[in-house]
């Protein structure tokens, strides 16, 4: 586990060196502009606009980092031939994959935490106070983090056996499909062929369901999120990540790096 931790910490450092956290400047600018403008262009929905805009920005920026950096984690090491030096050390391939995943997850956590702080500052500017009920926003932020972890795992899986461009396309494709799982499951008989409907319902349970993590609407309107949902989503993300990473490790272990 020490070796996994070492890879993780170095992945985090590499992300800092690559100026990944510069996106925070962009986020800060968006939130400042929104905080100033929202009062001028909206009536009675300032808080809702701030929360939905802030959470959307956290999600979009996080997704871009997850896909583009996640895909590059393995392929960059192979292209630069730094992987050979690493694997010559007492480091197993699965430890390398797990460490890279943990490193990017750490980067995303730090990044998301910083953006969340920015969101709360903007909220404070608009409302002149932060109430206990506002902390429900943190649940949405946590769900975004779970979603990002799942996307990183998928991006790493695809980067283990295909080119970076295809890995990005596959990851984006699975993510988009995962947003329509509910639609797939509820296609009504009469509007779709029954066999196709059954097939779609079947794969809707196998695809990662990214709708599970979408509580932005509820949170923006101050509705509480049940504790059971938080627990189930946590287990869901952990289990799905474990499956995807296990497959990624198996593929990477068998990959011919010559």
């Amino acid at each position, binding site marked *: 586990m020490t070796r996994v931790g070492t890879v993780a910490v170095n992945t985090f450092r590499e992300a800092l060196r690559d100026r990944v956290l510069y996106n925070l400047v962009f986020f800060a600018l968006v939130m400042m502009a929104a905080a100033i403008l929202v009062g001028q262009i909206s009536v009675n929905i300032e808080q809702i606009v701030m929360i939905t805009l802030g959470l959307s920005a956290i999600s979009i920026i996080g997704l871009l980092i997850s896909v583009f950096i996640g895909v590059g984690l393995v392929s960059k090491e192979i292209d630069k031939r730094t992987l050979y030096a690493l694997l010559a050390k007492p480091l197993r391939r699965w430890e390398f994959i797990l460490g890279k995943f943990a490193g990017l997850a750490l980067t995303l956590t730090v990044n998301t935490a910083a953006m969340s702080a920015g969101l709360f500052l903007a909220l404070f500017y608009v409302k002149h106070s932060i109430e206990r009920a506002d902390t429900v926003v943190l649940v949405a932020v946590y769900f975004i983090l779970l979603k990002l972890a799942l996307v990183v795992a998928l991006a790493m899986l695809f980067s283990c056996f295909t080119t970076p461009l295809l890995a990005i396309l596959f990851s984006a494709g699975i993510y988009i499909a995962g947003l329509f799982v509910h*639609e797939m499951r*509820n*296609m*009504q*008989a*009469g*509007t779709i062929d029954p066999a196709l409907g059954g097939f779609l319902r079947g794969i809707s*349970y*196998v695809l990662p*369901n990214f*709708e*599970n993590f979408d*509580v932005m*609407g*509820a949170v923006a*309107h101050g*509705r509480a*999120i*049940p504790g*059971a*949902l938080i627990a*189930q*989503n946590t*287990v*869901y993300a952990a*289990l*799905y990540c*474990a*499956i995807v990473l*296990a*497959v990624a490790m*198996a593929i990477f*272990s*068998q990959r011919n790096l010559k």
Partner: protein
Amino acid sequence: MSSKGYIALFLFVLLGFAGVWRLQKCIDGQQSAVANEDDQVMLRSSKLVKGLSLEYAPLVADIYWTRVVQYFGNKQAGKQLDLRLLWPLLDVTSVLDPHLMPVYDFGSTFLSDAPPRGAGRPDLAVQLIERGLRANPEEWRLYYDLGFVYYFDMKDNAKASAAFYEGSKNPKAYVWMKIMAAKIAMEGNSAETSNFLWQDVYNTTKDPLVKQNALRHLQLLQAEDDRKQIDALLDEYQKRFGRRPVRMSELVQSGLLRAEPEDPLGYPYILSEAGKAELNLKTPLRDKWIKAPASK
């Protein structure tokens, strides 16, 4: 990796997905408590959506159209009467792609039909078709849709006749449209005309939802006709025996009927307390029953 390793990986993935499946069912239960109860169309401004769609407006229209079909299908399956969003969805779709003809066919039928079959907004159906006519003046079928709405839902025979007549000027239009224009102008609303029009929709439409709707209308017309005939026999029974029967079997025993009559779905008709023929309480037709359709 050894063969044992592969087997272990396979089992892990299999069990993992079984766990994911089970968890998803639990999450679905929790999500329903969190989800907004109201349906939402996030972007209702058709102009805004068109602007945001850039050069991909027809593609976005297709996506909106899919949403319309799923929205209506889900509402029908859940027996929900509230179809408030049908119009905004159709409005956006028809602005994004004014040449998407199913929008007008489908939209006019389900916007104009009274609840529970539709949204009960024939005025919006007319607005939609008129928009379609402005964009597709050569489409005679839109006049047919317009005549349909005026005839069945707005009971405006003059406008229905005018719409059928206008459409009949197109050489590709049904030959009978001109005849229908004259017939409606002369006789007004009749069961025979209604039956003819719905039968034509049933025979010509390719949309399964529209076809199903036409079939249900035909069944309701048939049921209405049956009820009238049974009521006439009940009156006859009263003349002969000085009282109204309390069971349908009494009509059979008296020789006025050969067997107990059934509705088009096979459910036997029943007698109301007033001694009139009624639809069986169990028949699905009862859910769609509003009043005697086109029974003037």
